[in-house]
């Protein structure tokens, strides 16, 4: 609970820190979308990695706890992926003159987001055995993550390279990393909450089984 309060305060302060950061010379005001876009994209990729690792451990170890973690992470991948895929085009419309470009970074991100959706849909409608089928999907989602990250360095596309972030001026870097910590803390809190929901569902299933016996 104290962490949730701290996170709320940080999110309330973030717009003021972002507003104080310098304007980017060529893009101006719209570049400030970056301070929410990049952290949410990072959380999107982190969710896909956690979902993939937990799914692998579930597939090869059979631990239901890992399955619950994977399920929770997949839902967060959909959430943060949606934020990334909406804030990106809003920025691109002004900076690039188009809402969307089928370049490698954008297309692979969309693919990763669709894999996360597929995971949730398989879990919901797949019937018995869908947990293992979904776990297999999560491995593909995780394999896509390094491709999303490094693609901009190998294919010269309209999307900026990964080398942009380390070269940011101190003023912009402070705002970015503050936002990043905000999103990371929120991600941890949401993941814990979502895993707790899965645990409660598992407990409910166990109670129904106990009553039936």
């Amino acid at each position, binding site marked *: 609970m104290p962490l949730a309060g701290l996170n709320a305060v940080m999110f309330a302060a973030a*717009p003021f820190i972002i507003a104080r950061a310098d304007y980017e*010379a*060529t*893009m*101006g*005001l*719209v570049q*400030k*979308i970056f301070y*929410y*876009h990049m952290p*949410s994209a990072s959380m999107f990729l982190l969710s896909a990695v956690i979902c993939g690792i937990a799914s692998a451990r579930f597939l090869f170890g059979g631990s239901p706890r890992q399955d619950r973690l994977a399920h929770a992470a997949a839902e967060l991948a959909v*959430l943060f992926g*949606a*934020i990334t895929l*909406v*804030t990106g085009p*809003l*920025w691109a*419309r*002004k*900076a690039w003159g188009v809402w969307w470009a089928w370049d490698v970074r954008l297309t692979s991100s969309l693919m990763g987001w669709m894999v996360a959706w597929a995971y949730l849909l398989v879990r919901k409608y797949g019937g018995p055995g869908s947990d293992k089928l979904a776990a297999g999907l999560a491995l593909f989602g995780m394999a896509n993550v390094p491709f999303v990250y490094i693609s901009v360095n190998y294919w010269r596309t309209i999307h900026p390279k990964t080398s942009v972030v380390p070269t940011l001026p101190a003023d912009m870097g402070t705002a970015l990393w503050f936002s990043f910590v905000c999103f990371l803390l*929120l991600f941890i809190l*949401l993941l814990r*909450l*979502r895993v*707790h*929901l899965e645990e*409660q*569902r598992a*407990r*409910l299933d166990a*109670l*129904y089984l*106990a*009553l039936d016996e």
Partner: protein
Amino acid sequence: MVKRTETRRGAVLSVLLAVFIGISVSAQQPQPQPQPQPAPPAATDEFVPISQLPPQDQLPAAPLLISAYAFVWVALFGYLLSVGRRLTKVQGEVQRLESDIAKGTRT
């Protein structure tokens, strides 16, 4: 006969004179100047900073920025509410079942 010929010559001269004067006057009137046509825009085959674009090509940044931030806040709040609602429902059902088991009955 001679008088008629002189009359006709005078009429012809008058017409010629009128035509000449008309041409002279119209030549002295200022002609409307052709409007200068705007130069066609140069083809942009290289990067142009937003600040250097002509005003009609510039999009206002504020609505895009506000939309992006609003979407983030709405999505996060919506998700938080959704998880909270689901959790409350499941926990309520768990408590109900646990009390039923404790009583030895099932409703």
